[in-house]
C-alpha cells in the first residue's frame, strides 16, 4: 500500500552529489572508458619511455634536458583519447536512446549537465595529469640519468597539462550536448584542435592565420610546447582563448539540453 509520507526536502547540492555518483558509475561501467584510458596510457607512458631511451642513447646529451618535455610532447596526441572519452560519455546517451531513462532519473537538466560535464572532464583531466607524470617518470627512468626531473618545472608543467586537458574536454562535452552526435562531435574536435590550426596558416592569407590563432588547438600547442614563437601568443592570451572556447561551447551545449526536447 502506498503511503502519503511527508515529503523530505532534498537540497540541490544533494541531488547534484547523487547525479555525480551516478555519472561516475555510468563512466566506469562501459568498456569505452577503459579503452580510451588504455590508449592514452599507451601513448603517454610508451612514447615517454621511447623519448627517454632516445635521450639516453644520445652521444652528446644536453645538460639541461628535462624529462618533463616528454609529458608535454606526448599529451598532444593522447589528448584525443581524452576528448573522445568525454564526447562519448555525453553523446552515447543520444546514440543509444539512454537519454530517456537518464532524464527520468535526473529531470533537473542543469544538474545533469553539471554532473555529467564535471565528472567526465574531471576524470579525463586527473587521468591525463597522472599519465603525464607517468610519461615524465618513464622518460626519466629510460634515459638513465641523461634527463633531469626538476620538481618546480614539473608542477608548472603538470598544471599546464591539466588546464589544457580540462579546457579541451569541457569544449568536447559542450559540443557533445550541442550536437548530440558522436561522429559529428569527433569531426568537430579534430578540426578545432588539430586540423584547422595546422592547415589554415599554410594558405598564406593573414586573415586565415588570424582565424587559426583564435582556435583552441593553436593555443593548446603554444601552452604545452611554446610554439609558434612568431605569432605574438602569450600564456595569458592563450588561456583566455581556450577558456572562451570551453565556456562558450559548454554554455551552448547547456542551452540545448535545457531548452530542447530530450532527443528530438
Amino acid at each position, binding site marked *: 500500500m502506498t503511503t502519503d509520507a511527508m515529503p523530505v526536502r532534498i537540497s540541490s547540492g544533494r541531488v547534484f552529489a547523487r547525479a555525480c555518483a*551516478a555519472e561516475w558509475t*555510468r563512466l566506469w*561501467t*562501459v568498456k569505452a572508458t577503459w579503452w580510451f584510458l588504455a590508449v592514452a596510457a599507451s601513448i603517454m607512458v610508451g612514447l615517454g619511455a621511447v623519448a627517454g631511451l632516445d635521450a639516453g642513447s644520445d652521444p652528446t646529451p644536453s645538460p639541461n634536458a628535462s624529462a618533463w618535455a616528454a609529458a608535454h610532447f606526448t599529451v598532444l596526441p593522447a589528448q584525443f583519447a581524452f576528448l573522445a572519452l568525454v564526447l562519448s560519455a555525453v553523446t552515447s*546517451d543520444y546514440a543509444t536512446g539512454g*537519454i530517456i531513462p537518464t532524464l527520468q*532519473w535526473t*529531470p*533537473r537538466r542543469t544538474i545533469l549537465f553539471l554532473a555529467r560535464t564535471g565528472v567526465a572532464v574531471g576524470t579525463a583531466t586527473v587521468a591525463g595529469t597522472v599519465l603525464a607524470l607517468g610519461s615524465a617518470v618513464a622518460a626519466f627512468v629510460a634515459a638513465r640519468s641523461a634527463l633531469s626531473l626538476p620538481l618546480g618545472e614539473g608542477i608548472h608543467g603538470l598544471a599546464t597539462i591539466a588546464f589544457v586537458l580540462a579546457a579541451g574536454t569541457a569544449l568536447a562535452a559542450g559540443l557533445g550536448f550541442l550536437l548530440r552526435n558522436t561522429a559529428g562531435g569527433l569531426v568537430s574536435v579534430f578540426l578545432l584542435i588539430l586540423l584547422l590550426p595546422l592547415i589554415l596558416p599554410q594558405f598564406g592569407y593573414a586573415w586565415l592565420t588570424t582565424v587559426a590563432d583564435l582556435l583552441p588547438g593553436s593555443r593548446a600547442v603554444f601552452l604545452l610546447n611554446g610554439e609558434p614563437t612568431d605569432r605574438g601568443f602569450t600564456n595569458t592570451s592563450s588561456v583566455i582563448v581556450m577558456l572562451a572556447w570551453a565556456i562558450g561551447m559548454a554554455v551552448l551545449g547547456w542551452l540545448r539540453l535545457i531548452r530542447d526536447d*530530450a532527443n528530438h
Partner: protein
Amino acid sequence: MIRIRGLTKRYGDVLAVDDLSFDVEPGKVTGFLGPNGAGKSTTMRMILGLDRPSSGEVLVNGQPFAAYAEPLREVGALLDPGAVHSGRTGRNHLRVAARTNGLPLRRVEEVIDQVGLGSAARRRIKGYSLGMRQRLGIAAALLADPRVLLFDEPINGLDLDGVRWIRDLLRRLADDGRTVLVSSHLMSEMEQTADRLVVIGRGRLIANATTAEILNGLGRRQVRVRSPRPVELLKHLQEDGFAVEQLDGQELQVEDRTAEEVGELAHHFHIPLHHLSDVQQSLEQAFLELTGDSVEYHGHRAEPVDAATEVAL
C-alpha cells in the same frame, strides 16, 4: 494522480497533441488507447518532462515531474525498453538509476528478483531479448516504489507468461492505490486490464470513461431478438420508433436500444420471444467506431487491376 490540462505539442506543422485534458486517478489501471501516431507516446513524454509542451501543463501528484528531487519515488516509467546503453549490464543500469535517487543498492537486487531477470542481470544488455529489456525497464520503474507508474506498450515482446505477469503486476499496483497509466494499441488487452480508458486520435481526446462505459455506452448498442411472430414484432417496434432490421426469418436486430426496452415492448403486445440479448461489443469494435476518423496511417487494400488498364512501369 496525473492532471493534464490543455496539453498541446506541435512539431513544426504537425500537431501531435491537441488541447488534451484528462486526469489519471489513483487506485485504477487507466488504459491510454489510440491508433498509431495518435500522440500517446508524445503525451507520456510530456508527462515525464522529456518533451516540452507547446502549451498546457501536466502535474504529477501536484507538481511538474521535473521539479522532483527524487523523481523515481514519484513516477516509475517504461517508455522504450530499447533506449538503454547496451554495453552496460542490467545490474549496472539499475545501479545508476539507484544512485541518481539515493536508493540503497539492495533495492537493485530486490527488483531484479521481482521482475524475474535473475542471472541475466550480470550480462550486458546487448544480449537481452526484447522481453528481457521490458523486464529491465519495469525493474527500473519499480525501483523506488513510486506512487505513479507509466508504461508505454508494456506487453510488446513478452511471451504469454510475461503478458500474464504484466497483467497481474498492473492490477496489484493499482490495488495498492497507485496511479497506473498504460498505453496500448491492443484493445483486447486493455479490455482485460484497464478500469478506465482514455482514447485519443490525432492528438485529441475522443473518450474518457470506464472500460464498461466505453463497451456499453459509447459504442453502438444492439439487441438481437428472435420471435415466432417476427413481422408483427417488427411492425410494433417500428411504430415505436425503434431502428430495426430483419436479419432472417425470425431474427431481428434493434439498434441503439437495450434488451429491456425490446422485451417490455414485446410483453406489452403479448408477442412470445425465443431469444433476446444485448449484443456485447468488443472493445475492439467500440474503439474502431470511436477512432474511425482519427487514424493517421491507413492501410489500403490493393485494388484489383483492370485487365484493360495499361500499367506504366
